[in-house]
């Protein structure tokens, strides 16, 4: 159980209000017609499943219902950073 700071509601709320929504920064391919089956498989099914500090998406289901980014340790569950989409990208993430 942990508290999450919703970057939109600007409040620290119980995890129960939120739902996890998978790994962050998985961009939909720009050139879908040119992708091989392997590349599609990687986009749709393969994940880094990182052990350690992990960027992921959460949604404030029982609050503002907006999606946002969370950097969380998958070892300790500690939340290290919270950001709205656009504030952090795959290029400038810590």
């Amino acid at each position, binding site marked *: *159980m942990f508290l999450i700071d919703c970057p939109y509601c600007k409040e620290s709320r119980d995890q129960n209000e939120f739902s996890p929504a998978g790994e962050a920064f998985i961009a939909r391919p720009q050139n879908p017609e040119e992708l091989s089956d392997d590349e599609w498989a990687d986009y749709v099914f393969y994940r*880094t*499943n990182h*052990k350690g500090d992990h960027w*992921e998406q959460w949604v404030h289901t029982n609050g503002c219902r907006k999606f946002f980014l969370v950097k969380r340790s*998958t070892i300790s569950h500690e939340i290290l950073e919270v950001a709205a989409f656009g504030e952090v990208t795959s290029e400038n993430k810590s």
Partner: protein
Amino acid sequence: MQKKYSWYSLLKAGLGNQEWDQAIPLSKPKSKYDVIIIGGGGHGLATAYYLAKECGITNVAVLEKGYIGGGNTGRNTTIIRSNYLRDEASSLYEHSMRLWEGLSEDLNFNVMFSQRGVYNLGHTLQDMRDIERRVNANVLNGVDAVVVDHKEIKEQIPIINTSKNARYPIMGASFQARAGVARHDGVAWGFARAASNLGVDIIQNCEVIDIEVEEGRVKGVKTTLGDIMSDRVGCVSAGHSSVVAKMAGLRLPVESHPLQAFVSEAMKPILHTVVMSNAVHGYVSQSDKGDLVIGAGIDGYNSYAQRGSAKIVEHCAAAILELFPIFSRVRMNRQWGGIVDVCPDACPVISPTKIEGLYFNCGWGTGGFKATPGSGNVFAHTIAQDKQHELAVPFHIDRFTSGALIDEHGAAGVAH
């Protein structure tokens, strides 16, 4: 070390209460093996056992970073069943069930396999239609299964709440009589002992820190106890599969989640069978020791922490009390989480990889324990022949590229 347990060995050691030999020898790694298995849980130990017994490969090491059976093998709720919907899945789990049925004799170790039956409850009309469909599929596949109505459930399990006033009234269930439970630690110990009797080295406290790959071929592993060479490596590391895959530069279609369970204080016998419900999401049985063994669902977020959210515990406890109001004052003794690696289609990967000589057996998600002997058996043949065992063919990792997924999520992806 005693090679074989028997009435005579029990009597001989018991009379003097001495000469209780160590069950499994402690091994130090050699510099080279024919096959290395990464992960000393049930599936890894079973793989080593069947490699030695059925494939004639005895120069095998099982490398375990902690102690054998200390991961998910010792953390699950021990339910064994084979009533899966899809042909591919039910053949694999039924193969495992048949091995369970002779396992104690085969291993010369009592794994306390108890075929006490499993009820999978249905709470809505759609649940019942799905149950009818699954039972019919099971019967066609030679798996024993029947549909029972709520009256029969009440007759068999008098303490269950079949009232129409329940939040989710019980309408019926599927019942598999050959299903049941086993002693999870005993399964790890039994396979380890039987494998080491055939010459396999079981090496504990030996963590693999890197996998050596040269020109697309596996060469060996680096461990905390030194380098070990082998041109065939099988990875059976459950929740940590992605971590091991990364050592070889591979990605996997799995994500790791915490799955929780808890046990109560020991009580007199009150529940003689296993009751599972996908709809309200909980499952319960009573161990031979007397404690209620209760399983919950997974947390939706990724984790390697071996603990989950209180929310899941609360949800599961509510479900169990809905089914069994009589348990409302039972005190819980312990609660824990295991890290399960879940595939998008809730079916495992038993497969070679792009790296020659490197094989993966992973993605068992929330239901791997029941498959322990079958998984080890087909994985051993897959490694020995460098060709998938026929039952493992549908579980190739390439199904995520071809799209031939085995859609078991709806039928079995929730409760295990």
